């Protein structure tokens, strides 16, 4: 079975995000970028499927600027076999990504597509669901456990209040949650091997998709700063403050 994993290049999770002065977005110039952590989990899961003899080939797909090649290389160094870059300078919204991925899926015919449940930059949590809808495939989102059983997948999902396990037929879409696995590091020998693995570059036009944005960003702002805490002397003072200042009781 061929597995396709989507990998997004995002601002590294360690970076302190700064809003651009003109409020059109966040600062990405000279900022460390890396693979969306949920996508790392996706790559790891695919590699484990391959190690278990379930997957035969892993294709890592990224969409965006040419530097997304680096993100694909990271996936290749973790164990993916080849990469596809859908190259565009266009700002990509989830619907555009889903349409582009649909075109790639139709070409590649994978048995399973793994995506992160969301990307840590926009936190949209939409792409996997949209892709499933466009393809008419079953979906299992927020996966914390995945077991392939012939042409079915048993997926444990993290839902409000607990875990839910569902069985879906393949081909299918799975989106990863944090507890699915702990991704491996790209080891030094594998970084060198990844260099020799192929990455194919295509343009949205080659896929017959117009990725133009449908949404307009009005403005991006910093969240309100948290006020420094204070120490209260007595329980009475606490109750008073909760009543009069916080107005929660």
């Amino acid at each position: 079975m061929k597995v396709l994993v989507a990998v997004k290049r995002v601002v590294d999770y360690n970076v302190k995000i700064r809003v651009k002065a003109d409020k059109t977005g966040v600062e990405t110039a000279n900022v460390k970028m890396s693979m969306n952590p949920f996508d790392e989990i996706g790559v790891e899961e695919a590699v484990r499927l391959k190690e278990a003899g379930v997957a035969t080939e892993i294709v890592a797909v990224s969409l965006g600027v040419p530097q997304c090649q680096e993100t694909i290389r990271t996936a290749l160094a973790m164990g993916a076999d080849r990469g596809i870059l859908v190259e565009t300078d266009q700002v990509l919204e989830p619907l555009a990504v889903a349409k582009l991925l649909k075109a790639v899926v139709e070409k590649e015919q994978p048995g399973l597509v793994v995506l992160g449940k969301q990307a840590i930059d926009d936190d949209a949590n939409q792409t996997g669901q949209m892709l499933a809808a466009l393809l008419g495939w079953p979906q299992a989102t927020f996966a914390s456990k995945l077991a392939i059983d012939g042409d079915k997948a048993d997926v444990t999902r993290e839902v409000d209040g607990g875990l839910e396990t569902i069985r879906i037929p393949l081909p299918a879409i799975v989106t990863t949650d944090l507890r699915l696995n702990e991704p491996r590091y790209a080891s030094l020998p594998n970084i060198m091997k990844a260099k020799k693995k192929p990455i194919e570059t295509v343009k949205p036009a080659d896929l017959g998709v117009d990725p133009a944005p449908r949404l307009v960003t009005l403005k991006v702002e910093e969240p309100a700063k948290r006020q420094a805490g204070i120490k209260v002397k007595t329980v009475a003072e606490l109750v008073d403050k909760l009543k009069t200042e916080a107005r929660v009781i």
Partner: protein
Amino acid sequence: MAAFVRRADLDFLLFDWLDAEGLTGRARFADHGRETFAAALDTAEAIAARHFQPHNRKADIEEPRLENGRVVVVPEAKAALDAFREAGFFAMEAAPEAGGMALPHLVAQACFGVFDAANIATASYPLLTIAAANLIESFGSDDQKRRYLPAMRAGRFFGTMALTEPQAGSSLGDVRTTATPAGDGTWRIKGGKIFISGGEHELSDNIVHLVLCRIAGAPPGPKGLSLMLVSKYAVGDDGSLGRRNDVALGGLIHKMGWRGTTSTVLNFGERDACVAELVGEPGRGLAQMFQMMNEARIGVGLGAAMLGHAGYLAALDYARTRPQGRPADAKDVTRPQVAIVEHADVRRMLLAQKAYSEGAMALCLYAARLVDDSRTLPDADARAHAHRLLDVLTPIVKAWPAEWCLEANKLAIQVHGGYGFTREYPVEQFYRDNRLNPIHEGTNGIQALDLLGRKVTMQDGAALADLLARIDATAARAAAEPALQDMAGALDAAARRLDRVTQAARAAMAGGRAGAALANASAYLDLAGHTVVAWLWLDQTLAALRLPDGPLPRGKRAACRWFFRWELPKCAHWADLVEQLDGSVGETDPDWL
């Protein structure tokens, strides 16, 4: 917790300043590109953040201890070293055939620096192992390379450097541990070593000690010393581990800092059954060791630099978030307090830390690049030139970061005020950890003697001439930049002064006044160190001018300017002491103290 490393600073030094990418033009590194270098650094950063940094404090508090004869180290250290091993870092510089990544020394050092900044004590185990493996690779027999190297490159065996004895610290020529032939090609050694880092632990399957000792009957002094390999467990032809060797742990040493690394007293041959193998030639032990010294000393300097860097980042983070007081010229006591970074004196302390730590990182990485040049430049003369320059820089590369990044850590504590003096903040540990660096791998006093007594005089001063030529080239380039002209002039003047002072000291030494000159060797080391670091600051700043405007290039210029205004002028004083063969120290009788 503040970040322990600022990747943008490393990237600037590697890619914008030292042209790491240019190394891919050399056959040995042809498979590389900026992306493989960056990926290696990414993995180093990820492992350091996840596995090294989190137990840095715990390993300090829970010092290694003896339990029923076994050395207990915090379990997190093993997990960290396992991750380091699995990612292939033990073999990062080794050839692909040997399971390595063939990284240039420059990039390998930068990767190592990331681990140093996160947890220098745990990083010491691989540091020692890699150094020991390099020695075996350079001087060991084919059989030794077969039995020990692959396991060391894979991180299954760790290594030690067992030189120091109670009566032989700085003075290694006085080593007494003795080797006698066993008749079957192996040796039996007997003697006691002290301060041996990583001498005992259960972090690896085996420990390979490289022991400096004297073959029975060999002449006294350094020329009688040989290097012996002592394996904790016998290693069979098939790599299997056999009987335990006669190496006994005499005790653990309790230290001020760097506590996560076991420091051991080792007794070899208590039962006259310590099996050893000769590495290289008899009588060449110290010489072989010294051949590897340039690299080992870059490792020490870089460790000091990275501790300075980590302390700087912690202090910077604190200074930006700690509100205290109001601007010096503010009258209104009811206005909110400002972050202490707004106070000029706090900025002074931050600039100093930045100048010391980034200056030291630049110095060590420059030296690492010279290691690559001395190995891989196509032209033999150019290789020899790089090697000579590295030789003269080595005492500075070891001592300057140790001295001045300790000062940086002192200032990091000061920026934190009283909080810096507590164990709630990391800076007091950085200071204690960094306090080792002026002491080990040749004390700074010994480095000063090496620099003035040998390095600047060797080959009739050729190495110093090479160094001055490079300094002049930078000064000339800076003179063409209006913003840097002042500093170009100051650097040129400092270089001329260093040259004159050196000539004066050499003349005195040649004229029978070596004692008087060498009594001022530490002032000479400071003088040469500051001149070299000023040069590298100006050179970095030239590279920063080519970057798009932003905090990084502006910060480089600001730190460079600070160094030239606040530090470089100190050279005049040091130069006076050396030039005048100042007698205030040398003429003081020990009885008067």
